[in-house]
C-alpha cells in the first residue's frame, strides 16, 4: 500500500506542482524517495515534529498548495491532534494526512505504535473525511481522489507493505463515499475496510462452505459513511457482519449499529472489532489480531460456525 501510494503520488506530482509531501522523520518508501530527489522543494522533512508537520500543511494549503502529511498513523493523528482539529478541520483545508500502519499493523512495536482508535478520533471531528482502502488497487484509487479533491481534510489510513489484492474481481468500481461490493452473495453480508478484509474473505469462505451465500463490501470511505448502501444491506440480508481493525467505540461498527437502530433494521448484526484494551502482546500482524479476538477461527466460533 505504501508503494502504491508513493507511485500514484509521484505520477500526479509530475503534473501538479501544488502537490507536496511533508513527512515527520519517516523514511520515504519507493517513489516518494524519487519524488524527493526530483522535486526536493516539494518534499519537507520536519523531523520528529508532528505538530509543525500539520501546521505547515495547513498554511501551505491556505496559500494554494496541496500538501500531504505522511508518517506512522499514531504520530500522524494522535500527537498533533489539536492541529488536525483546529488547523485542518476547523479551517476546512484540503490536506491529506496519510497514516501508515493503521490498527495494529506494527505488531512487534507495542502499544505506542498501535493506531487502534485512529478511525474513532478522526470520526469525531467535523469536516473530516476518512478513507481506508483495503488493498493496493484501492490505495491507488483513494490516493488519486485525495490528490484532486477540494472537499477538505482527509485521513487516509493505509496498512504497510505487501498487502494482497482483494478487489481485482470486485463487482463494483471504487467510488468515493460509496461502500463497494467486492463479492456477490445473498444470505450474509460482511462489511469491512482496510487490510483486515482478508479476514472477511476467510470467514466468507467458511460461510459459503456451510451453504450461506456471502457478500463482502469494502466500506473504504468511513466518513462520510454511505448510509444509503448500509441501509440497503441491512434490509436485504438476514445477517450482517462487521469486521474492523479499530476499537469498538467510534468506528464502523458503531456507525452501522446507529444506522440499524435508526432504520429499524431486522437483520442479525454481529460486530468484530479490536478490544477496548491495550494488550501487551507481540508477534505477527495476524497474531496481534488473534489476540484481539480477530482470527477468522474465533469469529466463526462466535458465529457458532467454528
Amino acid at each position, binding site marked *: 500500500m505504501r508503494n502504491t501510494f508513493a507511485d500514484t503520488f509521484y505520477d500526479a506530482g509530475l503534473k501538479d506542482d501544488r502537490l507536496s509531501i511533508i513527512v515527520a522523520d519517516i523514511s520515504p518508501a519507493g517513489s516518494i524517495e524519487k519524488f524527493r530527489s526530483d522535486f526536493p522543494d516539494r518534499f519537507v522533512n520536519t523531523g520528529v515534529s508532528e505538530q*509543525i508537520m500539520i501546521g505547515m500543511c*495547513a498554511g501551505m494549503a491556505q496559500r494554494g498548495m496541496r*500538501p500531504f502529511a505522511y508518517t506512522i498513523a499514531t504520530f500522524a493523528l494522535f500527537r498533533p491532534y489539536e492541529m488536525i482539529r483546529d488547523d485542518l478541520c476547523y479551517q476546512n483545508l484540503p490536506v491529506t494526512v496519510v497514516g501508515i500502519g493503521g490498527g495494529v499493523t506494527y505488531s512487534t512495536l507495542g502499544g505506542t505504535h498501535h493506531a487502534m482508535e485512529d478511525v474513532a478520533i478522526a470520526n469525531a471531528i467535523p469536516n473530516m473525511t476518512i478513507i481506508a482502502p483495503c488493498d493496493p488497487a484501492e490505495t491507488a484509487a483513494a490516493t488519486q481522489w485525495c490528490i484532486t479533491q477540494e472537499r477538505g481534510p482527509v485521513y487516509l489510513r493505509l496498512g504497510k507493505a505487501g498487502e494482497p489484492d482483494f478487489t481485482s474481481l470486485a463487482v463494483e468500481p471504487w467510488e468515493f463515499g460509496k461502500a463497494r461490493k467486492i463479492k456477490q452473495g445473498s444470505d450474509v453480508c460482511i462489511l469491512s475496510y482496510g487490510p483486515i478484509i482478508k479476514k472477511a474473505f476467510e470467514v466468507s469462505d467458511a460461510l459459503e462452505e456451510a451453504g450461506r451465500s456471502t457478500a463482502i463490501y469494502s466500506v473504504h470511505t468511513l466518513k462520510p459513511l454511505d448510509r444509503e448502501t448500509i441501509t440497503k444491506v441491512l434490509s436485504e440480508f438476514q445477517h450482517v457482519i462487521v469486521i474492523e481493525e479499530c476499537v469498538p467505540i467510534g468506528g464502523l461498527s458503531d456507525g452501522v449499529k446507529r444506522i440499524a437502530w435508526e432504520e429499524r433494521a431486522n437483520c442479525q448484526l454481529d460486530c468484530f472489532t479490536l478490544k477496548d484494551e491495550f494488550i501487551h502482546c507481540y508477534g505477527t500482524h495476524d497474531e496481534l489480531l488473534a489476540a484481539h479476538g480477530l482470527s477468522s477461527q474465533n469469529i466463526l466460533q462466535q458465529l457458532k460456525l467454528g
Partner: protein
Amino acid sequence: MSSADTSKKGLTNFVDIEATRKRCQGYRRRILEVSQQVTALHIAPAFSCLEITDALYNLVMTKDGAGELEDVFLMSKGHGCMIQYIILESLGILETRDIELYCKPGGRLGAHPDFGNPGIHASTGSLGHGLGIATGQAYAEKLKGTDTIIYCVLSDGECQEGSTWEALLMAANLNLSNLVAVIDNNDFSGLERMSDGHPAFYPLVEKGEAFGWEVAEVDGHDSAAIAEAIWNRSKKKPFLIVAKTVKGKGVSYMEHVPIWHYRSPNAEEYKQALIEIEGDDA
C-alpha cells in the same frame, strides 16, 4: 514593490510620528467603545500589541496599486484580535457593522479570529498554532516564487507551547526569509509574570538567535521602531522581533494587572480610561 525597500533604511523620520500616535490613540478609543457594547473582550492583550499591529498594517505591509494588502498578517495570539479588527475596519476590509455585531448573534466576528472572514488568514485562539501555520504559508509563497511576506504576532505566553519552538526550528531550517514574527513580550501569561513563573523563558533574543533567526529587540509601543527594525533586517533569515510591551498599555489601572486580560471596564472605569487615552489631547 516591497515596502521593505532600502530607501527607507534608517529613516525613522520616514514615519509621521504624530500621525502614528494619533492613529493608535484612536484605535484605543475605538476598542474602549466596543468594550461598552459587549463584555467578551480582551482589552489588555489588544492594547499590548496595538502598536505592533499598527506598524505592520500601516507602515510595513505591502499594498498593491488598488490599496489591497499583498502581505499576510496572522494574529497567532488570537485573543489580541480586537486591534486587528479595528485596523481592518479602518482600512475598509471589515465593515463598521461587523464591529457593532462583534460577539453577537448575526455577527461574524468572535473573540478569536476566524479564517474566511475578510482580512483573516488563519483561525487562531488555541495558542501555539499561528507560527506553524505562518511557516507553512511562508514556505508556500517561496515555492510559488512570490514576494509576499508573512507577518505573525505571537504572545510571549504562547512561547511556552512546544509547537511554537517546532515552528521556530522549521522556519530556520527552511530559511524562510519571507517570514517575520513579532513576540508581544509583555511578560505576562494568563496567570502570572513570565519572569516570575517561567524565568527560564529568558533570555529570549539569544534563544531566537540560537534557533537560527535574525532577532531584534525593540520598544513594542513604538510603531516607527518596529517598522524600522523590519526595514533594516538582512532578509537572509526568518526575522524575529522581541517587542517589549506593557499589557494594558495606556490605561494605568489595566497596566500589568492580570484581571484585565479579559475584563471590560464599567461606565466609571471607561470614563477614566478615555481621559487617560486622550491625555494632553483632551
